[in-house]
């Protein structure tokens, strides 16, 4: 049983299926793909998300897959989990793999940024949707100044999330370049606290953003946003490098909403008492050697349900989890 049909669940199911296991994949939404299905292009090279997702979906050919299906109850019976699904089907499963992923931080919770209140404030997810559809009433025809706020709902105890969401810096740099391509006359500002360009090719992406796209990076967290008479947004921050307060009026502000454990995943986890750490994500058995195991026998984790991860990280964890499940079957059978 694999719970969650995002990229992680798809890859893990495909691998387990290839290894000869009888896999059931469940997904609460109508469509497979999770957040990936709503994303336009992926950093660092800008590969279309759709291409990646199509490949992942192709790979699960042969896996039993239920969409629009949720877990109603889950109990340990002797050595197997008895899982009752919302579609009326009951499954006895020896291993359960949680690939429930993340939720984007609800940006309206940072009330001072005015998401859902000011006309020109959108999120990273809204912008991806715009890149794909070219349709969003909040984006004016020829925006002259555009801002990105990093760490929205991340590294913020007031917002309930102390952790770094890992992918937003790279996403912001990617989106800043993309929007500059769409609107070459616009000035683009990124408000960051630290730029975390840890992955291969990310530093090059950052350099390109500066040199080729002229993106201005301002080190300082946006403190508050307000609206002008012309419905533009005024952003207040400190330019911490010069130690001076700074103000700029923008035509569009993009909030880089961070990651938190998915509510749907937590609901399943609570049914069987999966432990969660202070950051809200599921607690793995070990933090280095057994990242895929839960302390409950037969329960496994992969992907962002145990902390923010990039897509390649997630896919690697999916494969690692498949191996962990395989070892578990092998050992218990011996």
């Amino acid at each position, binding site marked *: 049983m694999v719970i969650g049909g995002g990229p992680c669940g798809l890859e893990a199911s495909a691998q387990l299926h290839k290894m000869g296991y009888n896999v059931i994949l469940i997904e609460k939404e109508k469509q497979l793909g999770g957040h990936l299905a709503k994303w336009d292009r992926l950093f660092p090279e800008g590969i279309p998300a759709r291409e990646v997702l199509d490949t992942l979906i192709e790979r699960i050919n042969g896996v039993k897959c239920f969409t629009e299906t949720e877990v109603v109850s889950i109990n340990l019976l002797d050595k197997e989990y008895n899982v009752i699904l919302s579609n009326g089907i009951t499954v006895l499963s020896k291993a359960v793999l949680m690939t429930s992923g993340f939720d984007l931080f609800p940006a309206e919770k940072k009330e001072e940024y005015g998401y859902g209140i000011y006309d020109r404030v959108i999120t990273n997810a809204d912008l991806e949707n715009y890149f794909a559809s070219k349709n969003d009433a909040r984006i004016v025809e020829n925006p002259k100044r555009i801002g990105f706020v990093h760490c929205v709902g991340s590294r913020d105890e007031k917002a309930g999330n102390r952790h770094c969401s890992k992918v937003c810096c790279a996403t912001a740099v990617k989106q800043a370049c993309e929007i500059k391509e769409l609107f070459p006359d616009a000035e683009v500002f990124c408000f960051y606290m630290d730029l975390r360009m840890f992955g291969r090719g990310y530093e090059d992406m950052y350099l390109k953003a500066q040199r080729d796209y002229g993106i201005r990076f301002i080190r300082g967290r946006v403190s508050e946003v307000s609206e002008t008479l012309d419905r533009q947004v005024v952003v207040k921050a400190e330019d911490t490098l010069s130690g*001076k307060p*700074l103000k700029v009026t923008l035509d569009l502000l993009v909030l880089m909403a961070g990651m938190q454990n998915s509510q749907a995943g937590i609901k399943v986890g609570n049914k069987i008492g999966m432990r969660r750490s202070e950051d809200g994500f599921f607690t793995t058995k070990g933090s280095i050697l057994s990242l895929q195991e839960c302390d409950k026998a037969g329960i496994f984790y992969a992907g962002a349900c145990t902390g923010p991860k990039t897509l390649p990280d997630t896919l690697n964890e999916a494969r690692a989890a498949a191996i962990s499940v395989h070892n578990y079957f092998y050992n218990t059978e011996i």
Partner: protein
Amino acid sequence: MDFGFSLSPSSRIDLDLFDREKFRQLTELEPDVLKCMACGSCTATCTAGKFAKNSLRSAILYLQNGQSAQALEYLKPCMLCGKCFMVCPRGINTRHLILSILKIYGDAK
């Protein structure tokens, strides 16, 4: 009327106000200015910086914030020794950049 107090001048950087034309000219002549990531190596190694207000990092920042007079202040003691060129991790031709800044902003007081 003297109240014994008055309006305090604002020290805020207002990015709405400054004229970007000169900075655009600078980036045309010197695209590498955009590569600065404010690491401060140039200032740390500057032979004049220990004795006078000299910092290329600060000067670039002031230019980006539209405060060219302050930027020039931070370059005044420069003797063009080029030591900053040796340490810049992004390989910016700092000496060339300083000369270009002076060429474009030189008349700003």
